[in-house]
């Protein structure tokens, strides 16, 4: 086709001329449209990111430079001492360790109990199964904030006040986790269980050797989700700890903010320290988080 058109010099045909101009105009409009879209996206990204960006910058400035006006938007002479101060004097190192321990306990506990319960609901037959499943779902209707009045005294009565166990125990099982694992197990073909039974696999062996490996995406999603929720907990650690030795990062950060108004760069450094573990987690496991989040949104 283009070979047919080629011999005719375009300039000699008015219609082709107009068409070319039109194409050029369209092209120009497309380019500008693209530039406009990038500009809009960039402006919005700057608005969303600015609080985090300025926190990083301020954590690297000297306190006097933070209050200088116009503000410094780039650390020309970065001061990393604030991180050291936040870590040692501000106890962020200890808080971080505590958060890791408690988050680990909660995540492992939640995933384990969810796998067990999910398997029972998906693969086993027993009386009152439906009722018990409704009981599990009913826990989703009880906000944790409602239970604190009693839970604080229960934890104290159990002798777990101000301890890692006290921080973790109420969260070792969730209705959400059991529901997620049940759904994942239900998608496995039932013949799988029969075949495994013929091979002499009991339920226990089938669960850990076949069902859990096949449900790995759901397990991963639940793990990331549980980690995120546990890491960000605020109210319960505030209620159940009294020593710096046991405070978690979120509470520690509040503490840090209250103690060092004059050394505000340390507060900023502390905020960054609190965020870094989650940034790393999400860099690697964003897909799993999305799956965990949307599990509830999908039509059931």
């Amino acid at each position: 086709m283009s070979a047919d058109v080629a011999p005719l010099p375009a300039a000699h045909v008015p219609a082709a001329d107009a068409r070319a101009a039109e194409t050029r105009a369209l092209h120009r409009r497309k380019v500008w449209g693209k530039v406009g879209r990038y500009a809009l996206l960039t402006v919005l990204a700057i608005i969303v990111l600015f609080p985090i960006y300025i926190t990083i910058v301020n954590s690297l400035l000297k306190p006097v430079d933070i209050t200088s006006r116009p503000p410094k938007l780039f650390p020309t002479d970065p001061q990393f001492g604030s991180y050291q101060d936040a870590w040692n004097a501000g106890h962020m190192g200890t808080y971080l360790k505590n958060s890791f321990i408690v988050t680990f306990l909660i995540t492992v506990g939640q995933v384990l109990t969810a796998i067990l319960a999910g398997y029972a609901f998906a693969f086993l037959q027993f009386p009152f199964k439906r009722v018990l499943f409704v009981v599990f779902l009913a826990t989703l209707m009880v906000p944790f904030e409602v239970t604190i009045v009693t839970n604080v005294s229960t934890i104290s009565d159990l002798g777990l006040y101000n301890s890692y166990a006290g921080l973790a125990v109420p969260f070792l099982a969730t209705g959400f986790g059991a529901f997620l694992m049940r759904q994942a197990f239900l998608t496995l073909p039932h013949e799988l269980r029969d075949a495994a039974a013929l091979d002499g696999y009991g339920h226990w062996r089938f669960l850990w050797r076949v069902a859990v490996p096949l449900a790995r995406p759901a397990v991963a999603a639940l793990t990331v989700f549980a980690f995120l929720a546990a890491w960000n907990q605020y109210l319960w650690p505030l209620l159940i700890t009294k020593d710096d030795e046991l405070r978690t990062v979120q509470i520690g950060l509040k503490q840090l903010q209250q103690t060092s108004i004059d050394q505000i760069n340390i507060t900023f450094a502390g905020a960054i320290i609190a965020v870094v573990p989650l940034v790393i987690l999400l860099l690697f496991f964003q897909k799993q988080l999305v799956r965990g989040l949307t599990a509830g949104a999908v039509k059931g």
Partner: protein
Amino acid sequence: MAASGVALTPARKRLRRRERGLGYLLLIPSLLVFGVFVFWPLVHNAYLGFYRNPPFPGLPSTYVGFDQYKDVLTSQTFVDSVKTTFLFAVLTVPVGIAAGLALAILAHQQLKGIGIYRTFFSSTVATSVAVAAVIFGTLMNPSVGLLPWLGLTTNPTVLQNPDWALIAVAVVTVWQTLGLTFILMASGLQGVPDELYEAARVDGAGPWSRFWHVTLPMMSPTIFFAVVIGTIFAFQSFGQIDILTQGGPLKKTNVLTYFIYDTLQRQSDPGKAAVLAVALFLLTLILALAQIWLLERRVSYER
């Protein structure tokens, strides 16, 4: 069920019994946690509400029947707190969802490098409520903050201003949850088939009309989910209020969760706190059921 008429062999019976036992065994860890930390508190809260705290510590608390329920639930502080809680949900949920959806639509186009923008827009998912509150608390600080320098301030300063404090806390909340909302909306958009947009375009629908007639109806299950979960989240907000305003100024940010915490910890009044907790439970329950009932009817699930 070929063997329905035939009696089970002893071996099969034993197997059945064992399966039954295993079923309960696997549920026990979860049920133990739920029993002690979810269901028992509901019962115990209701019971605690019948006992009034002694005027001086050390004395026994006294049984007052429903008196304390009546006193607390009819008090002006409680009514104001409920109003504040609802207002906070109204300030955060629709704005948050609209912002998340808008960003998701903008990031849902064929452009080079769009993946970077998606990462940017979802970035606040790495922040916690405490981190967001500390960052914004400093940004809004009248002596060191950047926002007052930009002229974004009020008199008295935002967080101490009865008219503005709740709005400021809402802004922090919307920002902190934006990453989550964006991720949710973006993955919802991926479920909308491109052919629908093509068909709409062929029919001459502009971007606005495509939004109203394709995007919105197709996204309604996701939006519905976000409204329900977002409202529950909003009703449980605590950390940002504890860090930024402590319920003040003039109790203008005294949402129910903060009211419970304040009553329990600072006033050491478990009886009154229990009544408030019962109220919060019933409120969220009614609200969730009402939302599900109301919205289920308007959501289109056809795909």
